[in-house]
C-alpha cells in the first residue's frame, strides 16, 4: 500500500516536470483503484454500480485539471482520494435528486424491472458531441483515433500550438458541462 502510494507520488512529480509517459503510467495505475472505490461507494449507497465508469472518468478529468493544486512536497494519495470522494458524493447527490424526480413523475408507469437509461461511461462521450466543432475534432482525433498532437495538427492543418490549446479547452469545457449538467 505504502509502496504503491510512494510510487504514485514519484510518478506525479515526474509528470509535473514534463514526463508525459510517467503521467500516462500514473493515470493507468490509479484507475483500477478509483474504479473499485467508485463501485464500493455506489454499492454502499444502495445504487447500481454500472455507472461507476462515469465517476472514474469524472475523477480523472478533475485530477487532470486541478493537478496544480497538488503540493509536490506532499504525498499524492490523500490529494487523489479527496478529489475522488468529492466526485463520488457529487454523483450520489445528483443521482439522488434525479431518482426523486423519477419516482415523483413516473411512479405509475414504472415497469417492474427498469433498465438503466445510460450505459457505462457514456456521459463524457455524450458531452463531447456538444463541444464546438474544432475542440471536438481535436479531442476525437487524439482520443478515438489515437493520433498524436503532430498528426492531428497535420490532419486539420492547424499549428501544434493551436491543437494543444483546443485540446486543453476541450477538456476544460467538457468538465464544465459534466459538472453543470
Amino acid at each position, binding site marked *: 500500500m505504502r509502496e504503491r502510494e510512494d510510487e504514485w507520488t514519484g510518478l506525479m512529480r515526474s*509528470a509535473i516536470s*514534463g*514526463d*508525459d*509517459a510517467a*503521467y*500516462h503510467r500514473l*493515470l*493507468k495505475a490509479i*484507475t483500477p483503484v478509483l474504479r473499485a472505490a467508485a463501485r464500493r461507494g455506489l454499492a454502499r449507497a444502495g445504487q447500481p454500480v454500472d455507472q461507476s*465508469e462515469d465517476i*472514474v*472518468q469524472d475523477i*480523472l*478529468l*478533475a485530477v*487532470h*485539471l*486541478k493537478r*496544480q*493544486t*497538488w*503540493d509536490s512536497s506532499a504525498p499524492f494519495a*490523500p*490529494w487523489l*482520494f*479527496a*478529489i475522488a470522494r*468529492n466526485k463520488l458524493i*457529487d454523483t450520489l447527490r445528483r443521482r439522488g435528486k434525479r431518482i426523486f424526480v423519477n419516482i415523483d413523475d413516473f411512479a405509475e408507469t414504472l415497469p417492474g424491472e427498469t433498465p438503466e437509461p445510460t450505459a457505462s*461511461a457514456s456521459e*463524457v*462521450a455524450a458531452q*463531447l458531441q456538444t463541444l464546438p466543432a474544432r475542440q471536438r475534432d481535436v*479531442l476525437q482525433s*487524439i*482520443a*478515438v483515433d*489515437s493520433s*498524436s*498532437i503532430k498528426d492531428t495538427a497535420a490532419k486539420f492543418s492547424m499549428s501544434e500550438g493551436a491543437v*494543444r490549446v483546443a*485540446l*486543453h479547452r476541450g*477538456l476544460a469545457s467538457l468538465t464544465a458541462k459534466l*459538472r453543470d449538467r
Partner: protein
Amino acid sequence: MDTDQLIRTLAADNTYRTRPIGLALMLALLAAAPVSLLIFFAELGVRSDVMTAMRNPFFDLKFAVTLALAVAAIAVSLHLSRPEASLRGFGWWLLVPAGILVAAISGEMMMPQRAPMMTRLVGKNSMACMTAIPAMSLPLLVGALYGLRQGAPARPAVAGAVAGLLSAGLAATVYASHCTDDSPLFVATWYTLATAIVASVGALMGKRALRY
C-alpha cells in the same frame, strides 16, 4: 469514450500548464481593484482631516485590523483551494484580526474618553459603513472567486465565505481612510456586520462558482 482513450487524451495534455492559484488570485484582485477604488473616490474620498487623524493610534488600528483580516483570509483562501484541506489547523489565522480588535477595545477602555461608550459605538457613519464596505467588496469578491476557480475546495461555500472575508478586508482597509469613527467599538460593531454580509454573499456565490 472508454477510459483508456480518456487517459491517453489527458496524457497528451500534460504539457499544458495553468497558472498557480496564488498568481491567478492576485491578478484577478488587481483587475477588480480599480472598480472598487472608483466607487470609493466617486462616492466617498479620503476624510479631510487625514493628516491629524494619522496621529491618533485608533485611526491607525483600523488599518491593522482590516489588513490583518485581508492577509489572513488570503492565506486561508489559498490553503482551502486544495481538495484535501480543511479549516482545521488553519482557521485560527482568521482570529488574528479579532484579537487585535479585542486588544484595541480594552486599550480604549483604559483611556479617558470624551464621548460615552454608546456614542462611540453608534458613531456617525454606521449606514455609510454598512453600504460602502459591501459595495466596494463586491467587485473584489467577484475577482477573488474568479481567481479561486483554479482551485478545488472541498467545501465551496466555506471557501466562498473566506473569499468574502478577503474582499471585505481589502474594501474596509480603503473605507477606513474615509470613516471618521475611529473607536474600536465602532469598528467591532459595524465593520464586523458589513464583513458578515459580504461573507454570506461570498458563501452563496462560492457554493456555485467554486464547485469543481
